[in-house]
Every structure is written in C-alpha cells, then in structure tokens.
C-alpha cells in the first residue's frame, strides 16, 4: 500500500514552496518510494544497534591554537544582500 503523506505539512517543515502540480506528483511518488523503503521495518530487530557512521570516530579535537580563518570579504562575497559587514535579510517575524 502506498504511504499517505500530508504534503503541505512536510513542505512547511522543509521551508519549500511547491506548486499544486508539484504537490500532486510528490504525493504519488513519495507514497510509492516510502512503500518500498518501509521494508527496512521487516529487516532489523529491536536489539540491532543503529549505525550513523560506518567508521565511527569520537572526540576529534585539534590543538586550541588560533589560525587564520575565512576573511570577512570572502565570507560576504556571495551574499544576496548585505549592509556594511553583515548579511541583510527581510524581517524575521513569522506570518502564519
């Protein structure tokens, strides 16, 4: 059975504007892909530990020494909009 998805909800979570046509197509396609993907539920028992990285590493630290980092102009060179040394964005207040 294809999986039923609330496309509007997922698109809102993903901050992704979709046309009605895109939503209709995605609803069908994701339903089929998820039906296939749900097979993972058959395979793994509860006592199998999850793997996030195949070759796990932990506490990877470097000496705490100051080194040069990206210069300000480099960091701002691709900004769609800027004011002085800052990225400029529209107002933050969410309108629901």
């Amino acid at each position, binding site marked *: 059975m294809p999986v039923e998805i609330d496309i509007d909800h997922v698109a809102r*979570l993903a901050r992704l504007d979709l046309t009605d046509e*895109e939503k209709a197509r995605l609803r069908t396609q994701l339903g089929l892909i998820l039906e296939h*993907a*749900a097979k*993972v539920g058959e395979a*793994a028992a509860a006592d*199998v530990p999850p793997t996030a990285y195949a070759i796990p590493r932990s506490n990877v630290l470097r000496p705490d020494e100051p080194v040069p980092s990206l210069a300000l102009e*480099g960091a701002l060179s691709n900004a769609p909009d800027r004011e002085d040394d800052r990225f400029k964005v*529209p107002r933050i207040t969410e309108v629901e």
Partner: protein
Amino acid sequence: MRALCDLTAGELAGRLRAGETTSADITESCLARIRAVEDRVRAFLTLTPGTAKEQAARADERIQADSAAAVTGIPIAVKDVLATRGVRTTCGSKILETYVPPYDCTPWSKLSSAGAVLLGKTNCDEFAMGSSNENSAYGPVHNPWDLERVPGGSSGGSAAAVAAGEAVWALGTDTGGSVRQPASLCGVVGLKPTYGLISRYGLIAFASSLDTVGTFTRSVRDAAVLLSVLAGRDRMDATSLDRPPLDYTADLDGEVRGLRVGVVEGTFGEGVEPDVRAILRTAVDRLGGLGAQIGEVSLPNTDYALSAYYLIAPSEASSNLARYDGVRYGLRVEGGDSVEMMARTRGAGFGPEVKRRIMLGTYALSAGYYEAYYGQAQKVRTLIIRDYERAFESFDVLVSPTSPTTAFRIGERIDDPLAMYLSDVFTIPANLSGMPAISIPGGLDAAGLPVGVQITAPVLGEAQLLRVADALEREIAFDAAPHIVGA
C-alpha cells in the same frame, strides 16, 4: 596514433620526465578535444582554458627544474560539487548559479600544490542526486559511446570527459555509486576509496555519512597515483582518517594467486542484463585463470540496502540542504518576511529530484515517523555492515557488476524515480559500510556499450583492491574507444 589527451597519466608523466612533451602541449591537446566534441558531450559547466594554460606553463617550469610530482602538468577535470576558489561552483543547481567559492576544497588544493592543471568544472546531477545526469539544471551530459544515452550519474560529466579525451583524469564524488556507475557506463576506471580516506572539506555536502571523493582514470595505476596524492588526514574534516602517507602504486605487481574472490549473489541473476552477466562471467574466469580461488558469497540483507539508502541519504540531504536559505550565498527570491523568502528561494532554486529528496528526508525525520523510517534504516545499515564483515572472513575481495545495465537512453527512466534508484543496487552497500570499491571496464555489450566490473575490499583494503583491479585490467586489456574520439 592516439592524441596526447587519450593517453594515461602514467604514460604522459613518463613523456614529461623524458622531455618528449610539455604540459602546455598536453593541455592544448585536451583543449582541442574539448573544442571538437564538447558541443555534443556537454561534460563541462565551466571551462577554465586561460588559467589552465598558466598552470601548464608553471608546471613546465617545475618539470624543467626537476621538482615535478606524478600529477604535475597533467590536466584534470573536477566535478562541480567540489569548491574551487575563484571558479564558479554550481553543484548543477540553479540555486548556486553564480556561486564563486572563497576557498578551495582540500582535494583540489592538494592537486594544485602538486602542479596539476585544472581544465574546468564538470556537469553533474543537481547536488549529486541522480544516476543519469538528467537532474542537472544545465541539461544532461551525453555518453561519448552513444550520444543519445546517459553517461550515468551523478558524476556523469567527469566520466564522459575522461572517456572522450577532454581530460586525462577527473575527480568525482560517490554517495551511492556516483563515481563507479558513470565509470561503468562510460568505459573508464572509477575508484571510490574508504570513507574518510580523502578529506571532504570543500565537497558541498549531500549525505555526510556517505559522501566520498573518488577518481576517474584510464587505468588502475592512474587511480593509485591520484589516491596517493589525495589520501590523508585533514584537520578541516573531522571524519577524515589518520593514515600515514602511502604509495598506492607499490603493490601493483599483477599477482593474485591464492587470493579468495567472492562473487556476489545476484551477479548472474534475472535483474542483470545478459551481456553484463556474460562479461562478468569472463572476468571471474580470468581471475580464476590467474590463480585466484573463486567462490560465491551471499549477503542476506542486500535487498534492504536500497531501502535503507533511500531513507538515510535523503534524510541527511534534507538537513544539509537547509543551508540554502537565501541569506549567505546563492539565489534569493524576495518575500514578505524571512520565512517566506526562504520558502520561495528554495521553491524556485531546487529542481524536481532535489525537492523529492528534501521532502522524503524531511518526512523520514519528522515527529512520529523518525523511528519507523530513519531509525530502522540505521539498524539495517548495521546489518549490511555485518553481512560484509562475515563475507570478508572468507574472501579477500568481492566481485559483482557495477550496474545491472549498460547506459540507458536519455529520458527513458526520468519519470520513474524508483526504477532509477534500482540502478544503484550493486554500488550502495559500499557507501553504507564505508568500504572501498572500484569499477573497471570489462568489455562492450552487443550494442557496443561499456560494461563495468566492480571489485570491493574491506575498509582500508585499498592496496589489495587496486592489486586485483590492476591484475584483471591487464588480462582484459580493454582498449576500445568511443567513435567520437576518432571523429
């Protein structure tokens, strides 16, 4: 006589050392080939002939001064998901159409310091998501062996450039097969090393636990040469492995006697095209003829690998691609407030496959579904790793097709994402488990299209992997070239 641009990097390095040619000549040979075929192949998104000539001139000075490395003066193409300072890097996406990185990725930085020559940035599926290159926002790459067919993906431009003689070798990235599958479909060698062996710094992220920088070359030896330069710990990538520098060409002696080779179950199965099966059969027989012990290996959880991959990769992608928010770089489409601006920017800037994966990943990570999808997929990942650990108790390397089919026609699978995803069935396990794997040309099918043979080794088993691949390459002696090269 073959043009300079059709030789291996090893042959060219020999000629450079002997003073028989110059980097300027080799670079001009590649640029001439690009002028001759690029309007049909469309392997590149950005060409850098001006800087290439400057780099070639500097390389020639180094060679004169006897301070050349193995890669000095050899022209290379770099996939457009790898950041190159001052050279536009689009990831095949409209959202980064004008992005010019202020820094170099570590792989190119290493090659650049060693005197390599950058020809340009190669076309790819948008953000490396795809198996056909049809997901590039800038149009598909055409397979040099048959221009109506796909080159594979996502590193299709890099594979096609090497196959067509537009570059001597190329860098790509492999998250689910994106180096090996296009190498297979374009008749070149594609190496995906162990996860973390090559730094990912400056590789624009798709799925961070799977992304691997890989190489396209005309010989296994060339792949070993590139890997020797690229491998190594990088303090800019916390997942890079701390390994001493190694000369990966050292063990290429052709000796595989007594080596245990496991043929992956399904290699000769229904889902694999008959010509692909036949070429795999011959390759396995050749290894047997060289004295390797051949057996069959069963990997019981393989059927679930594809499902796990198509949850894990989109989940990580949905998180990684959250950075395209119209604030710091890339496209911005204005909106009433920041949230509206972000949603509009992303709606306008991403193509259909990227949207599909962002939605898939967002759903799989969302409250109420996380355990059933993402959590379960991570457990399956453990099972896949265990399968391979068990297999490598009995075998030194595993052999399978790289792709179940040869190159398919442009447009043939674009409306059926699930069928497209199935073409990754043999390549995905190496990404889930971190193992190194390589695709080498095994021969041509009845239609004259290349078929790749995949060899897989345990984590950090590159020396063994390359030794077997090199031995098999000598036996197969694949020397066909696409018609377009002679035309």
